[in-house]
């Protein structure tokens, strides 16, 4: 019973906060564009990361709590990375955009599109080969590998370039991974709840450990 309560609180928190976060970062990107008539690619990528996160988290979290657990077929939308499904595709794009952001922040031009091309390769190959299961393992390896690499480089980039965006996303991804590792229990629910809370702080622009960033100065 306690588990059901913590799960409901945690899941509903992220379900409500995820779209708010996405709208907030989209608005910040749009305001910058309106003001300068230039695209801020870092803000655009952060928006895409949050959009993918929202796409992944809303159906999955709703499928676990009443009353939606009756109406949403968890098997249909997918809840893990073991197969290629709606959930794992969203996570795949999320980690891909993270690596794109790291490449962009560090000005590694030849690597800008590599994560997206790699992941698009898995999805296209999977579709063109009659949804062959040989791509499941590749998808899983990519998500975990790119995710771990993303977290490490987010911290390195965040500290090295004094970039709030990278550091914030590093913490955001760490919480997401902690939630996955801990699994489906009360501690996992606490991490899920923290993802929502931290995500909102980040999206509102209150996460500013560095006052001056090196990213835009480069």
């Amino acid at each position, binding site marked *: 019973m306690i588990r059901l309560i913590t799960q409901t609180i945690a899941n509903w928190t992220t379900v409500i906060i995820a779209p708010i976060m996405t709208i907030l970062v989209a608005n910040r990107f749009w305001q910058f564009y309106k003001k300068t008539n230039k695209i801020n690619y870092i803000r655009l990528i952060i928006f895409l990361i949050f959009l993918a996160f929202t796409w992944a988290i809303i159906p999955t979290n709703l499928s676990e709590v009443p009353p939606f657990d009756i109406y949403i077929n968890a098997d249909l939308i997918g809840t893990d990375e073991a197969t290629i499904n709606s959930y794992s595709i969203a996570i795949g794009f999320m980690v891909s955009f993270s690596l794109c952001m790291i490449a962009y922040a560090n000005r590694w031009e*030849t690597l800008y599109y590599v994560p997206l091309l790699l992941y698009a390769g898995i999805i296209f190959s999977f579709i063109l080969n009659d949804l062959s299961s040989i791509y499941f393992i590749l998808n899983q390896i990519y998500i975990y590998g790119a995710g771990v690499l993303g977290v490490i480089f987010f911290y390195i980039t965040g500290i090295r370039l004094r970039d709030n965006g990278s550091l914030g996303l590093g913490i955001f991804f760490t919480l997401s991974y902690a939630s996955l590792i801990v699994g489906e229990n009360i501690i996992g629910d606490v991490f899920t709840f923290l993802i929502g809370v931290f995500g909102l702080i980040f999206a509102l622009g209150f996460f500013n450990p560095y006052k001056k960033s090196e990213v835009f100065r480069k």
Partner: protein
Amino acid sequence: MNWYISLIDLIVLVLAILNAYFSIKNWKESKISINLFLAIFFIFLMPTAFRQLVLGIGLIEDIYIGENLSLNDIFSLVIILSTLQFLLYLKEWRRFYFLPIIYAFYSIYYLIFLPENLLFNISSIFIGALSFFVIIIDGIRNKNGMASSIAFIFVYGLVYTENLILLSAEIFAAFFRLLGVFAILLGTSGFLDKYILVSEETTKIKNTWIAKMVSK
């Protein structure tokens, strides 16, 4: 195997050696890194031509890895994707420099685990043909014989891709191999620049053909 196919393959081998010779000569004269890349690439073409000759005679057979990855497929990938890599370098599309490697990875994965190669054949022909036309149009527009002839690497590499309806006849395959190396030789030897795609700039900047592309 017909004797004339073996004869064509022998000529292909000789032309491949000449290509390697001219590209090394070009590199020694100009010391441009792209010429070094081409020299290494043409040296790589020599054993493929030799292998094709002994394969045709029947002295060796193709080697398979996994379900459907043959040594011919690997050669085909290297040759066709080199054309694409060259195109990306020529156009300075830095953000796509890794595209050929990514494509090669998925093709190899697909051929190792799946028992068919139709998708690989279609996609490699599409990528190769795209690179071929872009390079050749660009080369003619810039009056650059070397670049135009490099496009023909695709024609040479095409025949390594198996199960092509057009090239299933051995004579067609041999003809395409010959056409590929011959067209490349016209470029590496400087024949195209000297007699066909003549421009004042070419005569001014001898052997520094890539400079034309970069200095635009």
